[in-house]
């Protein structure tokens, strides 16, 4: 490389403001890594009343960490309506079944108000959920003695998840028909999705199309490709310390 020209008169050239700005910006950013979580929580609490009343939804674009982010692992997901939708229950069962939304709506409904916690960090407080307990559907089909686990299929064609039979029978594991006070929208995984309250969001399969009883737990999509824990308990898996939801 060429040699530099001799240092020039710096008073004439001016002060190195550019370098100071770069360092200041970098300093603010790095400090933010350490204090960012607290700042985010305070900011989210401060802005929550505005966000809830914002008819434009524009405030949801602000990165506050307390709104839903929409994840889809495949290409565009086909839309299903009440007339096209079917939920198949099969595998190691006595009576396989295929339910319409009307069938599911006619069953006893369970409502829950629980947080939704994503394993990537965001958490939406006090979401209203309502639907059929998974245990209800399992009882109707009668799992055979060799069944120990439940596998979930999605009509996105790619996503899979699973629970042990014992986890699946919990009272806070529901096949959700309603979310946030209305039928589950397409973007939220509607018309029918899973809601596994005590576990991270990836356990709650969106665009649910099939429930299959299996002989053993089949690790799901993110558990195979993203090294997520198969038992995705909130606050006790994936190296995280979030407050449990229960």
């Amino acid at each position, binding site marked *: *490389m*060429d040699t*530099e*020209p001799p240092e*020039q008169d*710096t008073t*004439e*050239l*001016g*002060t*190195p*403001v*550019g*370098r100071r*700005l*770069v*360092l*200041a*910006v*970098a300093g*603010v*950013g*790095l400090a*933010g*890594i*350490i*204090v*960012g*979580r607290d*700042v*985010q929580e305070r900011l989210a609490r401060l802005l929550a009343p505005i966000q809830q009343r914002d008819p434009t939804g524009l405030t949801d*674009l602000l*990165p506050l*960490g307390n709104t*839903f*982010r*929409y*994840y*889809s*692992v*495949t*290409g*565009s*997901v086909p839309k299903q309506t009440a007339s096209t939708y079917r939920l198949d229950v099969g595998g190691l069962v006595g009576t396989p079944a295929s339910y319409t939304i009307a069938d599911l709506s006619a069953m006893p409904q369970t409502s829950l108000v629980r947080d939704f916690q994503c394993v*990537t*960090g965001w958490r939406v407080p006090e979401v209203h959920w309502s639907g059929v307990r998974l245990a209800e559907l399992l009882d109707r089909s009668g799992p055979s003695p060799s069944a120990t686990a439940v596998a979930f299929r999605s009509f*996105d064609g790619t996503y899979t998840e699973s629970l042990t039979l014992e986890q699946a029978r919990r009272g806070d594991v529901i096949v959700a028909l309603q979310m946030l006070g209305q039928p589950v929208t*397409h*973007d939220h995984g509607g018309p029918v999705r899973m809601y596994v309250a005590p576990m991270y969001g990836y356990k709650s399969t969106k665009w649910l199309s099939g429930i299959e009883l299996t002989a053993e737990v089949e690790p799901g999509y993110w558990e195979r*490709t*993203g090294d997520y824990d198969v038992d995705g308990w909130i606050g006790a898996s994936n*190296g*995280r*310390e979030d407050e449990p939801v229960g």
Partner: protein
Amino acid sequence: MAEPPPSPTELVRFSRVEHAVHRTVAILMVVSIATAAILYNGFLAVPIGHRRIVKLVHVYSGFALLVPIVVGVLSRTYRADLRRLNRFSKDDWRWLRSRTRRDGTIAVGKFNAGQKLNAALSTGGIIVLLATGTVMYYPDLVRLSWRTGASFVHDWFALAIGLLVAGHISYAMRDAESRRGMRTGRVSTVWARDHHGAWADEAAGAQATPTTAGTRTRRGVAGS
């Protein structure tokens, strides 16, 4: 980097290395911003899907931003311009405060104070995005609360740098000659006198005496 001799009505503004660095950074930046928009916004994320691939493209185009910047720093012309961007003269502060800053009364060097600010803020922003992005990508690097902090910083800095880039492009779109300067390395002397008067004098002088051009071009940045 040797440039072919310019015609008398043109001045050399950027070297080929600078052109290549700018082009590469621009492409990687646009890819990073586009993939970030998909990852972040539901109305894009749901119809486009393929989260794993979009994420990979985002992460690697982000990390790749380092390459053109490091290559640039190895070049003499690039370092010379970094030095100019770094220094704020008294005229720069006057230019920032002035309401009539573009009428030519304040002699502007090779870069005006707005360009200097943009360069510094973008550089700082890129450093922060790279650092926080690294923390987010390698989950075992730091404790969880710092990782949450890193995502928070990454989100807000991404928003800020998106605005900076949008501003940068919108200024460029208003000035065809300035875009030609970046594309071909040359600008018309007339344009240079209008927008960067102090630099136009200096560069014209340097081109007239090519034997000393290498060292002379950097003289008198805040000058005259």
